């Protein structure tokens, strides 16, 4: 564990060093993210201020959905940025260099090192999230703890999603479109899941469990989830994670090492 942390630390340092070599790009990236964030907050504000409620949720609650999505989404990008760079490794066959090293390939191709730019943007997201959560009237401590727990569950699901994307990358050399599909689905959860009609809502919740990632923690925070539902979501998370590991192992066996 200590060794893995050391490797993680080194990879993060090198990732930061590389990013700092392109200062203009770095500033534009962070500025772009912040502008998008502000515009989206304004969009939610205008949307809910005219109707008062969105699918039964107040402006403050809608913002918590949005900030939870932003926090988890940025945290996943911060930790799994290497997945976005996986395709060139597969296409060129340089993934070979990862496979012959005595560490788990995830250390390099999944985690790879913290992306400093996402590390910068996550700070305001987290601050806003805490601010709005603490402003909830009569905040239930148990719900708050469960919210934290399900945020971790959301992160585990995000990990499983990214492992699945890597596996698909190995099997098909396709990464970019798969990851964009994942991002499009998760983005739908930046607003409360209840705005979507059945059966699409169940699809988002149980088939591609982005709903469990993003919406379930907030619903628990508001005390809107039954114990049965909590158990079901945990089971789905476990099954989905197992599927992603199984697919990864299968993909490794079928890896063809392109590029000579």
């Amino acid at each position, binding site marked *: 564990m200590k060794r893995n942390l050391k490797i993680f630390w*080194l990879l993060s340092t090198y990732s930061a060093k590389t990013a700092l070599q392109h200062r203009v790009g770095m500033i534009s990236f962070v500025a772009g993210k912040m502008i998008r964030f502000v515009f989206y907050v304004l969009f939610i504000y205008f949307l809910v201020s005219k109707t008062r409620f969105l699918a039964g949720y107040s402006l403050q609650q809608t913002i918590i959905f949005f900030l939870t999505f932003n926090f988890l989404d940025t945290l996943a990008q911060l930790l799994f940025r290497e997945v976005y760079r996986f395709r060139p490794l597969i296409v*060129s066959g340089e993934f*070979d260099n990862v496979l*012959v090293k005595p560490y788990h390939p995830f250390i390099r191709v999944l985690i790879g090192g913290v992306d400093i730019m996402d590390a910068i943007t996550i700070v305001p997201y987290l601050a806003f999230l805490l601010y709005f959560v603490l402003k909830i009237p009569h905040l239930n401590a148990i719900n708050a703890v469960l919210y934290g727990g399900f945020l971790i569950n959301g992160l585990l699901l995000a990990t499983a999603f990214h492992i699945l994307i890597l596996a698909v990358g190995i099997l098909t050399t396709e990464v970019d479109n798969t990851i964009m599909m994942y991002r499009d689905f998760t983005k739908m959860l930046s607003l409360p899941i209840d705005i979507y009609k059945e059966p699409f809502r169940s699809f988002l919740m149980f088939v591609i469990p982005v709903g469990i990632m993003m919406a379930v923690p907030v619903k628990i925070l508001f005390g809107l989830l039954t114990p049965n539902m909590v158990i079901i979501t945990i089971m789905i998370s476990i099954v989905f994670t197992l599927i992603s590991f199984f697919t990864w192992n299968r993909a490794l066996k079928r890896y063809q090492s392109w590029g000579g």
Partner: protein
Amino acid sequence: MISIKGLTKTYRIPQRTKNLFKDIFFRTYKEKKAIENVSLTIDGNELVGFIGPNGAGKTTTLKILSGILYPTSGYVNVFGFTPFEKKREFLRQIAFIMGHKNQLLWELPATDSFRLNKEIYEVDDKTYKITLDELTELLDAENLIHQPVKTLSLGQRMRVELIAALLHRPKILFLDEPTIGLDIFAQTTIIDFIKEYQERYKSTIILTSHYMQDVERLAKRLIMINHGKIIFDGLLRNLVNTYSQQKLINITLLKPLSKEFEPPEKIRIHYQFPQLQITTHKENIVGVLAYMLKKVEFVDVTIEDEPLEDVIKKMFVHH
């Protein structure tokens, strides 16, 4: 010891038709055997040349031996390990250097990649320092390791690449075309280094190369593979003795050949004064030589074996 028995690797290749719909929804695959029923053993501390034309199955074999690829069938054992299990103890003992691939952090100095490898391979500080000093000295790379990798030439990068791959002093080295694309000076540096490294650290090395000079200079034993099957496995010397039927006689003439000169039968002549080159079957060498020495005035005569490349080319044509 490395031991392979009945090793086969089959790739599935999608077949394209003119029907896009069929290509997407009802794709068919053709199975191509990259290697078929390959068996061989390699002892510890051996340096083996592994050669064959493009697509013969050399790299696939190395990739199976290093655990990158999963074999379709057969038995593989490398120093007591099954490579594809990717046990940490196994991976710590090997290094795979690919001439056309890069393992270094592109935008940063090579020293950063070295430090990363130090942690990955759990090399202690003292060994790391000693090995790094030794390798940089052997490869004359002291000035290169502090520059961003992207600023290095191909030859320089390969020297630094070797340092990164060998910092943990691997017992087994897979070298896949380590001199590809390098000029003659860089090639010589790398080849000399491999020789020196093997003598110093007693590693087992499997080398693939398209340059016969590399193999000739480094390996006593040669394994030739074509269409996924081993067609020769033995000493380089035996290959030449068994398969080379030709000898080359190079004569440096004192005077141009006279118009009356008639060459003996069953020889090939290449003549451009003052050089006269004769290719003949090795059984005829004495007769041809005696005849020529009588007929021409010369300054120098040398007899050479047929170039190794020609012998190998002929073998590949016949298999």
